[in-house]
């Protein structure tokens, strides 16, 4: 495995996320934890791939890795490893830190022992997220030292050195990344892989229990640590001033991915500027920043999302009585919305430096193109569940949904996603809707989401007897983020056998009296089950069990089994279009002369279309490899 090569000095191409994993290996990582979430997933998946390859050979990878139940548990597991003197890393997507924030905020009071890196993968432009919150605020909110890499190589170095920083300050370090770092490949220079520490030892200390009297002592200690952190920030190699050409009063302050766009433009446009490149962005080095402000007449601040550097620079300018002109978000040159690119930064620079934007205004095709939104895969069992639900439920039914592939039920013709906030919100909002309306309510969540955050609202439904139908779409994996295991699978992130927890056992334990367990591929039976659940007064849970078709077909291929695709008998087909208009499998299309055909390249062989066809015109064709 290339990522495990112990050849210091060698350059290899790595994804930003893989580079973070490599950085942890070069720092002698002991414990890594996560709950998967785009754009962070490949950090943890890389740990898992490495661990599994060792497990296969009956060897120890030198670290422990787990896909935890949720981000809060992930942070707690890793924090405990740190309390025991081990090096730990926890990675999650930005909204994951909301889940983990209860632990995070007080963890900073308590402090850590072994180095601990907490990776937040933010998602400007919401490429795969429900919001684009800027988690740099968490570093300011909780007083956490923060590193913000610009390139994969820097991400690796910040991870590696971040462990030392964390141990020096006895504080977890927030490594704040964005999609355009996580999902960019670049060359990185390998350094030596360090041996892990093995078993740690937990030293008891009354300061680890922040009862009010202790917490009041912890807070000033934390502030003192941040003063120490600022001294480190002043000297950090990640904070630097770069002169381009002959600077003539213009300065640029930037961090993260924005730095790349700035550098390319100032070089291409032959600008004479000085650049303050901040890599350790909390606490920012105020002495360095103030000197920089003093040396400039105009300062441009380039940072995606919130004006976090901008506001701090402005405060400092005020403090030193500087009259420097500041261009940024409040001046209207940059937006608080979405991710930046060369075009956006060039547009702002062209106004400030008075040059013609080198990039052409975007052309758009004169032909109207059909959109290609993500859709449920051909053969996805969620489609069958949704088809059955729509048969069973009255039109006014409300469908609270959740985070996972099944959110794609939002699209027509299913339209089974009416309300969404966050992980687990389907069942919580279902309870509220039952109080607030007389409408029927059928909510949806996946099995991984059920374990993550879906259980407490079910308890609420049972305790208060809310009249809701809560559906768990149990496809035995965390499908959306790349098929990671969860408490309902019989293996774990290390590739070891794990105890499988059945959704129905948990639901029974929660006190739910009406439980329906269905195979959604049996559409008629599933429809009947939803009808019964709707009739039941009080909370009912429908567990719709069928493995993700992609996983199932992968396993079949590995076993050498064939997948039979389906075809439509053109003699029998009456063109009723139920398979297209109501079932809407992407593999079913119009062929020549308005005939309806199944694209065998796309067909995954679930056979549900054969079930729903009223004229028996669909049947298995032949096996495809």
């Amino acid at each position: 495995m290339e990522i495990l090569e112990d050849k210091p000095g060698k350059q290899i191409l790595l994804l930003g996320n893989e580079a973070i994993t490599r950085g942890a290996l070069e720092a002698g990582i002991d414990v890594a934890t996560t709950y998967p979430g785009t754009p962070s997933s490949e950090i943890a998946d890389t740990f898992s791939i490495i661990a599994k390859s060792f497990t296969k050979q009956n060897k120890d990878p030198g670290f422990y890795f787990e896909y935890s139940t949720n981000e809060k548990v992930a942070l707690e597991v890793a924090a405990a490893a740190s309390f025991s003197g081990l090096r730990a890393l926890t990675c999650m997507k930005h909204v994951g830190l909301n889940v983990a924030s209860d632990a995070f905020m007080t963890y900073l009071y308590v402090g850590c022992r072994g180095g601990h890196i907490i990776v937040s993968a933010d998602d400007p432009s919401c490429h795969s997220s429900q919001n684009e919150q800027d988690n740099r605020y968490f570093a300011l909110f909780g007083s956490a030292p923060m590193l913000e890499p610009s390139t994969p190589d820097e991400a690796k170095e910040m991870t590696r050195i971040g462990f030392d920083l964390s141990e020096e300050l006895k504080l977890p370090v927030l490594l704040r990344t964005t999609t355009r770092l996580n999902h960019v490949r670049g060359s990185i220079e390998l350094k030596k892989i360090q041996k892990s520490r093995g078993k740690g030892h937990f030293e008891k200390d009354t300061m680890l229990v922040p009862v009010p009297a202790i917490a009041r002592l912890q807070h000033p200690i934390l502030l003192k640590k941040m003063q120490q952190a600022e001294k480190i920030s002043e000297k950090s190699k990640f904070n630097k001033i770069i002169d381009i050409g002959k600077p003539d009063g213009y300065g640029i302050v930037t961090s993260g991915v924005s730095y790349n766009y700035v550098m390319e433009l100032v070089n291409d446009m032959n600008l004479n500027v000085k650049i303050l490149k901040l890599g350790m962005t909390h606490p920012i080095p105020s002495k360095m920043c103030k000197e920089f402000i003093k040396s400039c007449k105009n300062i441009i601040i380039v940072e995606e999302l919130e004006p976090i550097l901008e506001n701090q620079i402005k405060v400092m300018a005020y403090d030193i009585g500087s009259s420097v002109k500041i261009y940024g978000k409040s001046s209207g040159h940059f937006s608080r919305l979405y991710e930046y690119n060369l075009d956006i930064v060039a547009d702002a620079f062209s106004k400030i430096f008075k040059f013609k934007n080198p990039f052409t205004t975007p052309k758009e095709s004169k032909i109207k193109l059909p959109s290609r939104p993500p859709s449920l895969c051909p053969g996805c069992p969620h489609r069958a569940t949704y088809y059955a639900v729509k048969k069973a439920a009255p039109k006014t039914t409300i469908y609270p949904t959740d985070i996972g592939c099944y959110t794609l039920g939002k699209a027509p013709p299913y339209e089974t996603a009416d309300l969404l906030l966050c992980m687990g919100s389907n069942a919580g909002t279902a309870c509220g809707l039952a109080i607030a309306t007389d409408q029927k309510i059928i909510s949806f969540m996946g099995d991984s989401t059920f374990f993550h955050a879906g259980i407490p609202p079910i308890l609420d439904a049972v305790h208060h007897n809310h009249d809701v139908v809560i559906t768990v779409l149990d496809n035995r994996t965390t499908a959306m983020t790349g098929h990671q295991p969860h408490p309902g699978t019989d293996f774990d992130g290390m590739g070891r056998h794990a105890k499988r927890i059945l959704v129905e056992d948990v639901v029974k334990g929660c006190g739910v009296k009406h439980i329906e367990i269905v195979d959604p591929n049996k559409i008629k039976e599933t429809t009947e089950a939803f009808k019964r659940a709707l009739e039941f007064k009080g909370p009912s849970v429908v567990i719709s069990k069928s493995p993700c078709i992609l996983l199932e077909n992968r396993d079949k291929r590995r076993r050498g089994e064939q997948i039979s695709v389906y075809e439509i008998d053109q003699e029998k087909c009456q063109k009723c279009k139920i398979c297209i208009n109501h079932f809407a499998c992407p593999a079913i299309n119009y062929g020549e002369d308005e005939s309806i055909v199944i694209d065998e390249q796309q067909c995954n062989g679930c056979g549900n279309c054969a079930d729903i066809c009223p004229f028996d015109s669909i049947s298995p064709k032949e096996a495809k490899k």
Partner: protein
Amino acid sequence: MKDKTNIVITGVGGQGVITAANILGKAALKAKINVFVSEVHGMAQRGGSVNCSVRMGNVSGPLVADGTAHAILSTEPIEALRYIKYSNKNTIIITDINSVIPFTVSVGMEEYPEIESVFKELTNYGKLFKIDAVKTARDAGAIITKNIVMLGALAAADVLPFKSEILLETILETVPSKFKDMNKKAFEGGFKTIKKH
């Protein structure tokens, strides 16, 4: 913008777009050229629109800027048009001629444009090469090698800052050994389709 090579690779999820971009990035590194590969993929495993930026040479921004692509490589015709903002009149546009119909079209919500009009429109934005990558891939042994056919075509288009041999070597190092012959055929097949133009 000298000393830079900007390649945009687009297509539909599941067609090997990201793999192709990754291979191109590895080849650049092998040729000791600075490179960034950026993936933009949506939520679903399959079926969505995918595009990747591969930037080589004197670059630091990971995304291709509007109007600066040296080549747009598309595994589906309308996906080339969807990302046409990256093109300028010198851009080489290589597209597979085989359409993948979005479900928005199959359920009748939207229309797939007439294919010849798509090709005609593409010629307004750059130098167009149409190839039947599905056929070439099938001839090589499997449709799954279509992305390699596309890379072969790109290698023949004289835009890459390194020799086509380096790209082929990288492909052969990346794929499992039992599929080496098939991928070599696919690459060479793609290469020939452009050289014939």
